[in-house]
């Protein structure tokens, strides 16, 4: 435990000094402010409180931003140690490889937790300011917060795995961005195209739901939009999201971080310093 804490403390210091904490917090705060300003119009018409509307917009934002921030923090984690020559040294200490990863993950999760708290906090404050009924949306906001951390944890794990496989920071950064594009942007476009082409056939009814659950970002979006009546209404996806039971999307977002961490451990074990 001391060993994990020692790694985490140094790593968090590095994140602070490299301005990662500042960048992540500023990014989340900025986007939250923009969303609050832009999302103020449609409230009344939908019959949802203002915070639920904000949560719906924040969900769409988090799907892009949280994986990106997580991958950007993670890509250097192992490759950087390899490049500096400190990885072999670390591995001669009485420290196991999973402990090394756990320490880094702890620091990066803390950074993410701070950034999200600031960003979501700003958005929530803006919603309360404009709508006294906003308290109705608080459970949805809390849900969004901890699922965002799970989503972040997943992409941290995947980022560590890429970092260990690539061995060079440059290559790891490239892989991380490529993965983000594929999983977050292209994946959904591909599914959309397939569903349109399939026109309500076997793919749409039997394969499509599983493909949504298989992608941590999609599972995250599904869960957050479907878990609350009001957010679902605000997002306008009531029916579609409801076709997949909540426990399935929740299961997917809870399992993904564990799977991603296991992937990272396996990738690091394969690495000969």
């Amino acid at each position, binding site marked *: 435990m*001391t*060993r994990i*804490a*020692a*790694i985490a*403390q*140094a790593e968090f*210091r*590095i994140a602070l*000094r*490299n301005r990662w904490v500042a960048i992540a917090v500023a990014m989340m705060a900025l986007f939250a402010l923009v969303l609050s300003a832009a999302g103020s119009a449609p409230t009344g018409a939908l019959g949802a409180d203002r915070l639920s509307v904000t949560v719906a917009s924040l969900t769409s934002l988090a799907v892009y931003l949280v994986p990106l921030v997580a991958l950007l923090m993670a890509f250097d984690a192992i490759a950087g140690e390899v490049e*500096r*020559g*400190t990885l*072999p*040294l*670390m*591995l*001669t*200490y*009485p*420290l196991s490889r999973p402990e090394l990863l756990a320490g880094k993950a702890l620091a990066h999760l803390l950074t993410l937790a701070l950034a999200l708290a600031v960003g979501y906090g700003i958005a929530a404050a803006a919603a309360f300011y404009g709508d006294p009924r906003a308290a109705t949306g608080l459970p949805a906001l809390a849900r969004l917060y901890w699922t965002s951390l799970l989503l972040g944890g997943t992409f941290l794990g995947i980022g560590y795995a890429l970092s260990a496989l690539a061995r060079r920071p440059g290559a790891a950064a490239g892989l991380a961005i490529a993965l983000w594009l594929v999983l977050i942007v292209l994946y959904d476009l591909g599914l959309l195209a397939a569903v349109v082409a399939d026109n309500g056939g076997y793919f749409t009814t039997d394969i499509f739901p599983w493909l949504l659950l298989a992608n941590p970002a999609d599972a995250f979006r599904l869960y957050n939009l479907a878990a609350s009546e009001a957010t679902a209404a605000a997002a306008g996806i009531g029916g579609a999201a409801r076709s997949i039971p909540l426990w399935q999307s929740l299961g997917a977002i809870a399992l993904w971080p564990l799977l991603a961490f296991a992937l990272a451990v396996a990738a690091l074990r394969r690495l*000969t*310093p």
Partner: protein
Amino acid sequence: MTRLTLSRVTKRFDGQVALDDVSFGIAPGDRVALLGHNGAGKSTLMKLVLGLIPLDSGEISVLGAAPGSRRARRGVAYLPENVAFHPALTGLEQIGQYLRLRGEPASGAQALLERVGLGAAARRRIGTYSKGMRQRVGLAQALIGKPDLLILDEPTSGLDPVSRREFYALLDGLAAEGAAVLLSSHALTEVEARTDRIVILSHGVMVANDTLAGLRKRAALPIELHVAAREGQADEVARRLDGRRVNGSQVRLDCHHDDKLARLEQVAGLGALIDDVEIVPPSLEDIYSHFSRRAAP
């Protein structure tokens, strides 16, 4: 009991032999220098001892345990070659982290940094350190927790002559307390008399494992006599002594240890023709090349 024992250690990378049947041991208090060219197998040997890479055949015992085992990791300190610590951390923070990884309080960091001469720079970021200072950070982490065995990969690279001397003084202290030391270097001149034994690797083969005096004796390289002739007499001196004229006044003679006195007598016999004579034993570089060349394929 030896701190480190290698017996018939062999390691291949993709069919290429990196280490071939290497055996030696290090006792407590022994300082052993591992010499060889780039690619001779020094770093590979160290990584095997540390358990970072698996060996193909043979056996390695580190403090009576397997390389990389918990027992071995607890008692072994390592200084990698060209290690660069994170530039955003201060020396104090970096050493504090390593202390905690070894289960010791981070408060001991200042004392360790002072021991390697970095006390004043402890609170500065490592990014602002010179190469020699970064090397000292590496050394400081290797001193944590009184290790039984130190594995130091080119520890004096980047150190100026004064720092190098301080480093060896530190090593003397550790050895006196019973630590065993294995350090690698490119050059015999660098380790000189500051180590107890010298192991030379050449293309993965151990070509020597002896004290410096032993190596000298075994190499049996000729001693050179540098004879300075009086003005205009160099040719005459070269002819009479059967030596090589190297310039207007200098004549060189090669001779073996046993005929040294006889040759000197000959030189003395020339009396007025001679200005000066110097006895030059084979240099450390000569001895090193003698051994490391022998195994070249």
